[in-house]
């Protein structure tokens, strides 16, 4: 559904993505992992069209996204930190977002109801706590029933009840056959919510397969140790490359 | 014919009854020759011109006659020479329309041209498309009143002066309207003449131009939109009072240009929207009092060689520059004026500012040297420069100071 064809991106001298290739299929839920600065956010933002790759192309439903914006109708995006117009009330924010996609008439209000956002719809965004803003972000991401959900650290900052509500929502969406991309540092969440693991290291895909095979390859029974092993391997690779370079 | 005979009869009877004189009244109709009627008349007679157009020029009058127009008859000079040429005393010309003189600069073609005349009255005439309007040489005790002179020339060389006096004295010029000529009113070697209540506008060169003309007075005239305003040169003992100088705009245009004037008074005049209100050069002992300078580019341009002039109790409001000078102007007195740009204070509440006012600001000095710099006027940078100069004067002449600036404008009514 989304294919990333050999994109490269440099920020200044730093090469964040190198000939990056990856494809995401419908019905799967991907955990995108990697150390800080490995290129996870750049990848997500490239898919959203917020970062423009230097080389390569990204296809959504077989069409290049370059210079287009209509494909974003298919995407629900929950940013890491959602900041909104300070003077806008929650209710107004929702009607504005609905206004941005006038062709969609069917709204998914599950999260709005479960987070009880209706009760505070007259509060302005500026007065909300970080957690409440995250709830708003989450509710907005699901509002249009999009085929693709991109969730950047979705559970960060949410209280435990809200985390549970959100997780069950994500699961329901996954079961209904949507494509879901999640980045998170909370491995237990990822294990619970995803079936595919992608590990990015220094702008390249280091691992890309199902969580089952990840466990097999690393010969670990649990997700966290498996990832830990993956990280160790990357470090080794790094040292070997170094050695190679010096040789 | 019958009625006119009867009319003539009554007039004659009336005259005989009052037994004032033996003069008679002659009626003229269009188509008859004015010159012949003049030749036939005797001194003291009255010619009445019936309404209509008389095509005639070069009519010479050498005796005391009264020529009256009935319903403003027109004498059309047909573009040739002068229309009336008069050399006599006690001539009265009233109610005529004179049009289309010649355009010769050789003989200065005029609507009416007087030589060596005395005690004449020129009243309520309309002069259109004349080269010179009313032209007087070597005459005295003339009364020029309520005439309207209009020239439609496009350029300065295509027209002469409206009211032109040369070597005349004791005249009265009042309530005339002069427009579109080269100079509206031109006086040269004229003395003891009063110019009052005239409206002089849109003349190509000066509204009022006088040279070597002493002891004259100008009161309540309006000079508006003339090419270069009013020029007064080489003159002394002059009184200019309660005149209005308006919208004299141009590269070398002034409300008044005073050049080599002395011992005169400029009182109660209004200078509104002129490029330069008063431009002075080589003038001394002039009193300027109770004048209003408003919305001029420069209210005063005081050139070097002006001394002992007094500027007292005038209002200066909304002029771009209040005063400028080309160098060190000394020995002039500036006092008790109201300057709207004054930013001082009055702690003792005597309506006089406690710190002196410097009417010459830095930028006016710069603009005087480099005219193109005017385009930067009112920019933040220039404002800053002027502020600095006010605190630490370096370039502006420090003698030009009003030591007792008024806090409130004078009400001249």
């Amino acid at each position, binding site marked *: 559904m989304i294919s990333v064809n050999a994109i490269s*991106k440099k*920020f200044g001298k730093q090469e964040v993505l190198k000939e990056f290739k990856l494809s995401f299929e419908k019905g799967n839920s991907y955990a995108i992992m990697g150390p800080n600065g490995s290129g996870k956010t750049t990848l997500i933002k490239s898919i*959203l*069209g*917020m*970062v*423009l790759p230097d080389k390569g192309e990204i296809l959504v439903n077989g069409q290049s996204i370059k210079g287009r*914006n*209509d494909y*974003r*109708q298919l*995407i629900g*995006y929950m*940013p890491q930190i*959602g*900041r*909104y*117009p*300070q*003077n*806008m009330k929650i209710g*107004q924010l929702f009607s*504005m*977002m609905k*206004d*941005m*996609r006038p062709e969609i008439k069917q709204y998914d209000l599950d999260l709005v109801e479960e987070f009880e956002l209706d009760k505070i719809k007259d509060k302005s965004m500026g007065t909300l706590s970080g957690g409440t803003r995250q709830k708003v972000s989450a509710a907005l991401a699901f509002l249009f029933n999009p085929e693709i959900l991109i969730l950047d650290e979705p559970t960060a900052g949410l209280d435990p009840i809200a985390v549970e509500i959100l997780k069950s929502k994500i699961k329901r969406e996954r079961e209904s056959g949507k494509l879901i991309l999640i980045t998170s540092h909370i491995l237990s969440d990822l294990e619970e919510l995803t079936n595919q693991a992608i590990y990015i290291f220094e702008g390249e895909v280091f691992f890309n397969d199902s969580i089952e095979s990840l466990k097999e390859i690393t010969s670990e029974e649990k997700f966290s140790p498996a990832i830990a092993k993956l990280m160790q391997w990357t470090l080794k690779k790094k040292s070997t490359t170094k050695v190679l370079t010096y040789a | 014919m019958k009625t006119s005979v009867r009319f003539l009869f009554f007039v004659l009877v009336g005259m005989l009854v009052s037994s004032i004189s033996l003069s008679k009244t002659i009626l003229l109709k269009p188509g008859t020759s004015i010159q012949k009627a003049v030749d036939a008349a005797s001194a003291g007679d009255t010619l009445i011109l019936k309404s209509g157009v008389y095509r005639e020029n070069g009519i010479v009058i050498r005796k005391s006659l009264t020529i009256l127009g009935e319903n403003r008859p027109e004498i059309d000079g047909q573009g040739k020479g002068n229309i009336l040429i008069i050399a006599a005393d006690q001539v009265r010309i009233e109610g005529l329309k004179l049009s289309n003189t010649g355009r010769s600069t050789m003989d200065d073609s005029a609507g009416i041209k007087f030589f060596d005349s005395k005690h004449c009255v020129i009243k309520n005439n309309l002069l259109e498309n004349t080269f010179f309007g009313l032209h007087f040489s070597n005459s005295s005790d003339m009364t020029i009143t309520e005439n309207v002179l209009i020239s439609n020339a496009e350029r300065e060389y295509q027209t002469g002066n409206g009211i032109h006096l040369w070597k005349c004295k004791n005249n009265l010029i009042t309530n005339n309207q002069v427009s579109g000529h080269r100079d509206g009113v031109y006086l040269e070697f004229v003395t003891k003449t009063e110019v009052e209540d005239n409206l002089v506008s849109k003349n190509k060169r000066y509204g009022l131009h006088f040279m070597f003309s002493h002891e004259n007075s100008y009161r309540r005239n309006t000079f508006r939109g003339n090419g270069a305003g009013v020029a007064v040169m080489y003159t002394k003992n002059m009184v200019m009072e309660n005149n209005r100088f308006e919208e004299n*705009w*141009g*590269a*070398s*245009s002034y409300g008044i240009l005073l050049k080599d004037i002395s011992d005169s008074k400029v009182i109660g005049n209004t200078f509104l*929207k*002129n*490029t*330069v209100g008063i431009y002075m050069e080589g003038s001394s002992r002039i009193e300027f009092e109770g004048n209003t300078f408003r*919305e*001029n*580019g*420069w209210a005063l341009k005081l050139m070097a060689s002006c001394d002992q002039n007094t500027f007292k109790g005038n209002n200066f409001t*909304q002029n*771009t520059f209040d005063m400028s000078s080309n160098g060190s102007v000394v020995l002039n007195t500036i006092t008790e004026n109201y300057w*709207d740009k004054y930013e001082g204070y009055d702690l003792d509440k005597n309506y006089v500012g406690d710190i002196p006012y410097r009417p010459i600001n830095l930028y006016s000095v*710069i603009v005087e*040297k*480099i*005219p*193109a*710099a*005017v*385009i*930067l*006027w*009112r*920019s*933040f*940078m*220039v404002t*800053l420069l002027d502020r600095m100069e006010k605190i630490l004067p370096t370039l502006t002449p420090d003698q030009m100071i009003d030591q007792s600036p008024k806090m409130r*404008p004078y009400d001249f009514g």
Partner: protein
Amino acid sequence: MLKLLKYALYDILKSRFAIIYTVFLAMVAVSIYQVSDDLSKVSLSLMNILIMIVPLISAVFATTHFYNNLEFIELMLAQPVKRSQVFLSQLFAVILMLSLSIVIGFGLPMVLWGADSSLITLLAVGVILSAVFTGFAFLASVITRDKAKAIGISLALWIYFSLVYDGFVLYLIYSFADYPLEKVTLGLVMLNPVDLGRILMLMQLDISALMGYTGAFFQQFFSSGLGVLVSAGALVLWMLWPGMLASRVFGKRDF
């Protein structure tokens, strides 16, 4: 586009800044009306303030606003809308707000106590300068990623156009005083929007002075059909190009 503008405007018009700025301008205008005894003095004083304050506030506020809205801009970028529209809606919202503040802040006292053509011109100049400096501020904002740096650039542009540039022109006129510099000066003036705005006012307030000497050349130019066309064209360019360039940079920028 209109939708985006509507929401951007809605946000900005309700901001505390919009109210403070309007009230500030109104207070300035009211106090000047109180102390001045006639209208042309009012427009003179207002102009002195406007020429300096409006570009400064526009530059600083627009930069700050852009950075404060960056997250919101990012939110919009993830929606199915065009990038250029996201940008332009922000730009126009700021320009509209700043203009409205001027029109209301200066305009209400004018409605109350009267205005003449110079005051109406003043409002127009205020709106134009707001647009120009908002354009500059947005340009400064998109070419840097640092708010402080962007504010620095905006301030530098303000100082340059309000002060340094005129100093340079004066220096030039002074140094080449012996040459006819009218046309050069005219050309130089076209390169500074603040000067152009100021001259629009000069044409109203100092018409008598401009009629003299070299001034007549400027006066003739700025009141001739060609001059009006050229100077209006220059002002329009000044209003457009910083914003357009900024929009292009914005279109290629990563978020």
